[in-house]
């Protein structure tokens, strides 16, 4: 029996924080690739500490719905799941290349495959592009458009910037958008000066965050100048200093994220049948005809 456990941050304050986790779990459940799909949280229930005891299967894949390797994926989650003998060297990662580690979870005395976070998987690049398609409602968006991939800077986590750059570089290599830039909230180049970093009249801004919340709904819109105060709201696109900014909100809410969760489990050895193709198909942006 094959089980998937998606672990995410959750929130004591924001009811929408867990929504992407539940949505992606539902998408994956519908593929039937796993006998069970469970969700666990740091700030909601079941907590990381107790989620594994709700799992029935013998082949267990744990996928963190986090954007980068760092404090949560390297310390908090393995500790709270009680992965025996965990050490970050198990992943042998340069900050982007964590794949999986197979360890016994003391809580249930069974092996689990502890996967790297979704945010650093190569398939995440496609989700960022898909997010740009969604927000512009154009499956071919790219020509005459710039793309800004935005995240925290290194002040919080050195690997956060690495993930942003990694995806921005990969998208740039595809020559699909006129310009692709990595911008940050707390270091240069800063998202506050977005129009200065782009020549294109239209720029899609995709924040590399899992859920919409304070950063994506208040911080970034105000810093970029989409609105004076987030309570006023803003249009998509909104023109700031002559640049039309298409603000996408958290990339983690994009339905294709379910694909990255599956890719992580597949890399760790899960048998997925046709689930990957199914998810890519069902989460597509309509062509509009």
């Amino acid at each position, binding site marked *: 029996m094959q089980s998937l456990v998606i672990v995410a941050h959750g929130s004591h304050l924001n009811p929408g924080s867990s929504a992407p986790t539940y949505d992606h779990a539902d998408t994956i459940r519908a593929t039937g690739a796993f006998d069970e799909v469970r969700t666990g949280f740091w700030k909601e229930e079941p907590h990381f500490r107790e989620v594994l*005891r709700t799992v029935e299967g013998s082949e267990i894949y744990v996928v963190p719905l986090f954007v980068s390797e760092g*404090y949560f994926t390297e310390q908090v989650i393995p500790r709270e799941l009680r992965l025996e003998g965990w050490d970050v060297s198990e992943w042998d990662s340069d900050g982007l290349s964590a794949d999986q580690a197979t360890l016994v979870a003391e809580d249930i005395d069974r092996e689990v495959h502890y996967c790297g976070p979704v945010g650093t998987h190569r398939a995440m690049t496609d989700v960022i592009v898909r997010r740009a398609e969604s927000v512009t409602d154009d499956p071919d968006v790219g020509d005459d458009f710039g793309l800004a991939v935005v995240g925290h800077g290194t002040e919080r986590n050195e690997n956060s910037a690495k993930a942003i750059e990694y995806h921005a570089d990969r998208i740039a290599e595809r020559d699909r958008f006129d310009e692709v830039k990595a911008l940050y909230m707390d270091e240069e180049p800063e998202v506050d000066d977005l129009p200065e970093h782009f020549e294109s009249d239209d720029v899609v801004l995709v924040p590399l965050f899992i859920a919409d919340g304070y950063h994506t709904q208040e911080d970034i819109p105000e810093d970029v100048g989409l609105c004076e105060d987030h309570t006023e709201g803003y249009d998509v696109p909104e023109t700031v200093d002559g640049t039309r900014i298409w603000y996408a909100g958290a990339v983690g809410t994009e339905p294709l994220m379910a694909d990255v969760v599956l890719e992580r489990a597949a890399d760790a050895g899960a048998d997925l049948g046709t689930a990957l193709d199914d998810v890519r198909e069902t989460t597509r942006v309509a062509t509009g005809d």
Partner: protein
Amino acid sequence: MADPTTATDGEAADSEASDDAPEVPEIDLPGDAFDAVLDAIDDRDPGDPLRFEGFTASRASGGDGDAAGEYRLDPADGDRRTGLSERELHEALAERAPAVTDWYAFERVVGEFGPRRAFVRWIEDADGETVATRYAALAEGIERAWGELRITATITDRGERRYDVRHADDAGVSVGELETHEDPLDARELVTFDEKGRYRPLKTAPSLAGGWVFPELSPRDLYETVETVYPATVANWHREREGELDVSHWRETMERQSGIYGVVETWDRGEGHEHVDWVAEACCADSQCLKRREWEYDEDTDLDVDGGDGVFPCREPCSVVVSAARKWTRLESERERTYEFELTPSEKEQVEEIIEAVADGRTDEIREADTKEGANRYRARFLRAKRFDDEGNFGGVPTDPDEE
């Protein structure tokens, strides 16, 4: 097919039912249950019989008079029957449909997973009562409470369990008057907000909103629904029943914290656990959380406050407690000071009433014009108008004496 009203009369001689005992319902043996029995018998060695309540069934092993491939039935009290064809076995099992469907319900529908199995068996006391007693009780409806949930178990004429799950406050309300659901995952929406539309960060807070019902859940969906409303409570309850609940007490939980929560460990200064008593009284009382607190200060030191009466245990300080403790660790690091205020006796009592009303979540209940209540909005506004200075200092006394 026997008429259930006459069947009881006709079988009264060999049944234990008396006039006032609930009646065991008439059960038809469903084909899938019979097929499962055949499969189970086929999977076993001859001579390793399949056990039901009151009898066993097996494939004849040959050599004892049975033709190979035929079946035998061994009642616990009565003559064994050998050499049964599949059709004869079916007839024999159909006569014992309650026991067979009971086996099928637990062995094939509910399955082995410990927490689910224990929970569904607990609902009908399957480890304590006979099939006949349980089926009679299920026919009437067995009610169980789990937190704020009311679970009513019934049985179909095919021996399948069905469960009605709703808020305890909606007991007795007809299904038609409630919002009905089938998918256990629908419960995620139902538990997110309380009756006033406020987000519920703690699923086991006694603030579950009602007005909905899952009227006909299967055993597996019952478990999933309860798991969604009160995550991991069944698993922890099950471990506790097995004597395996892994309790993590306050000290070890706080010592484990890191990052922004690492500071909480410093709140324990080896000067007793009064501060943790206050935390438990503030956050863990039954009025705040339905879990029964089993964690203490440490393994050797119990807290002085009661853990509550919940059905399911709380095995360690939850994330809400840890987050609040972080705030208190900072606040409680402040030194006490002496402030001097002029208050009338009624004003002192009013301050107390306001704190009581907020702590008990009563502010919404206090009527707008009920100025007898100290926590009434007009009364509070009057106190503010009279006693606050332009900077919002109570009694005109600055918080920091150097500010004057």
